[in-house]
């Protein structure tokens, strides 16, 4: 199975975007960082014990599925929407949702638009290769308003066109909109419209049929989420790993039970995964949270205990 391949190789091949601020981008030294990247690193840490043992493979909307299907990458952690046909027809397994997103619109404030329904006749920049162009076609058709689609391959180019006024509206997942907006010279001159025209649960995915590997990816993600829920952070994990009063924490960190063994890993797997970049909340804050220039509020992506949708099945 994949897990053996990964272990034999000593590296995890992880598909990411060719670049979305906050989610995945390389720095000058070629080190990748971002919200999606953190998932890759966590999985690598869980399986291989080393969060840097990851080969990041940039993919575009066009190339990502082939890369995964052909085995070129082991895990696709790139803002990919979980849809029926991708799951069933394209034969992939989504291992969970790490970001609840929805397709939104960004417009310059100066345009004086307050709702997407007022966009009749507007020129809309869309990032292609995703579900966005289909959602957009459906939305405008349903509301019987016309628009001019401008399909664009990468976020960077879409942003360039939008800023220069070559399109009135930029539409993509709201998270990417926020991320993009944050890098503007004058972010305040732009606003994200209230309409979210689709559900975009984004999550990592693996090939269909390799359940061991799917489980590892799924539960690594869940471990990050559970860690936040249980208050396990990268700061206190060393201490907690010595054993706590909370049995679930103990099971998570491998001091109790044999969950790791069931996954075919060792007992410390989750601990390592959390240690790399912290728990889900830490990852969020560090890469895209309010303290970063991107500044996305938790919103739907808050823990269920805080009224959000982030919810992990129990570690038992």
């Amino acid at each position, binding site marked *: 199975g994949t897990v053996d391949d990964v272990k034999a190789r000593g*590296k995890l091949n992880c598909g990411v975007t060719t670049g979305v601020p906050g989610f995945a981008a390389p720095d000058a030294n070629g080190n990748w960082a971002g919200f999606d990247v953190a998932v890759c690193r966590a999985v690598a840490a869980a399986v291989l014990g080393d969060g840097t043992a990851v080969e990041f493979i940039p993919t575009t909307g066009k190339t990502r599925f*082939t890369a995964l299907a052909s085995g070129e990458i082991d895990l696709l952690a790139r803002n990919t929407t979980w849809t029926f046909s991708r799951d069933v027809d394209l034969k992939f397994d989504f291992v969970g949702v790490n970001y609840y997103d929805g397709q939104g619109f960004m417009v310059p404030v100066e345009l004086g638009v307050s709702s997407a329904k007022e966009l009749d006749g507007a020129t809309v920049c869309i990032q292609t290769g995703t579900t966005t162009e289909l959602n957009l076609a459906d939305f405008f058709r349903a509301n019987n308003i016309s628009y001019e689609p401008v399909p664009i391959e990468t976020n960077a180019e879409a942003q360039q066109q939008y800023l220069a006024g070559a399109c009135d509206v930029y539409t993509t997942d709201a998270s990417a909109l926020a991320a993009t907006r944050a890098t503007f010279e004058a972010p305040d001159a732009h606003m994200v419209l209230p309409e979210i025209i689709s559900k975009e649960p984004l999550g990592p995915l693996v090939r269909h049929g390799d359940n061991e590997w799917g489980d590892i990816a799924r539960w690594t993600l869940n471990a990050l989420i559970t860690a936040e829920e249980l208050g396990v952070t990268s700061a206190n994990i060393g201490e907690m790993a010595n054993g706590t009063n909370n049995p679930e924490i103990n099971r998570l960190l491998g001091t109790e039970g044999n969950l790791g063994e069931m996954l075919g890993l060792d007992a410390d797997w989750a601990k390592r995964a959390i240690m790399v970049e912290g728990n889900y909340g830490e990852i969020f804050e560090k890469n895209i949270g309010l303290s970063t220039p991107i500044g996305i509020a938790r919103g739907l992506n808050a823990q269920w205990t805080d009224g959000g949708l982030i919810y992990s099945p129990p570690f038992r």
Partner: protein
Amino acid sequence: MSNIEFVRTEMLPEKEPPASTVGPIGWMRENLFNGIWNSIITVLFVLAIVWTVLSLLGWGIQPTWNAKSLSECREIIAATGYTGHSGACWGVINDRWLQLLYGFYPLDANLLSAVSGASAAEILADPRAHVATPIVMILGYWRLNLAIILLFVGLAPVLIERAPRKLLIVTVLFPFIDVWLMWGGSIWGPAMAFVGFVLGYFAFKILAPIAGTLIAVIMSAVVPIIWWLFLSGSAASIFAGSPIDLTLEPVSSRQFGGFFLSISIGVVAILGSLPLGIVLALGRQSDLFIVKALCVGFIEFIRGVPLITLLFVANNLLNIFMPPGTNFDVILRVMIMVTLFAAAYMAEVVRGGLAALPKGQYEAADALGLDYWKAQRLIIMPQALKISIPGIVSTFIGVFKDTTLVSIISLMDPIGLSNAIRANQEWNGIVWELYAFIALLFFVVCFSMSRYSMFLERKLQTGHK
């Protein structure tokens, strides 16, 4: 009619030409201001050039080399009081030029830490904080630099007539050494691949006298293939652990990127396409109907579709065509496709060279008793290839430029990298500087190649007499 008689007793001396026809003035009258129209055009062009140069300089000369982000650039430019459209932000080049050249190829951190004293981990995190940039470039990427130097040394005997013949050894060996340098791992892998070629050579040598050239040629292809498929792997692994082994840190081709990726795809395609193109050209020229039909079909098919569709095939379909379970690297697949692409064009160029040879050359070879292969090798090809050199070089240039298309299937060539760089917080919004830098890289290489080919063309023209 004796009046027509005339004898000059004293020869006239040579006179200076009228001032207006020589010197700078004469030159300008001749070349810039001969006629009203020309004068007007000259003035207009001069104005246009001056305007373009001034505005480009105004944009380009900005003290932004050390800026760490686009916003910092903007501040610096605002401070200079520059009022143009927007000034150039060269910080991005300063920050990323190593990446644009070498992509994500891993640095040799151990070597750098030995030089600087910083630990390998520190080096990896930010090498240029500890070591001077030129040293990072030279030592950090010594494997790639060495590979490129070897490439030039290996090509020297082919490109330069006066290069010492001994360098031919490098020519034969450098593909294998370069593979080893670039991908790393045990040296025995490439060495065993080389052994395959040696075996093929000996198979030919031994079989040719006893079984005839045709069988020898076929066997010299079959023997290495058998070796590579079934034996070389185990042979390499036997040696791999042994003390007589040189091992470099393995690098996956996914880590290739930047201009170096363009170069490696280009070089592989160029080196691979030449022999393949020759074979195809010979096939197309042959009078064996089926062989000819197959070659024509292949050449016309490849030349009839855009490279980008072939890259789609490389990216999406090549794995489907292979036995289930095979999974080879996308860069390898791209290299294969680009090689096939270049081979089809090369075949047409070589065919032109073949067609230019007079029929008498073939007949003379026949009459001397040379068989088909010997005639090709000794008589036909040396001449045909020489004639086709300009065409071959321009095919090279075309292929090299076309390597940028791989950015469309998400490989990190310079254009692909430029998108990734622009996705970064600091450099979001950068456009021109990156494009200009990339354009310059390609221009330098392609322009030198085209000049070299012109030089060769001139030499061949005079050399033929």
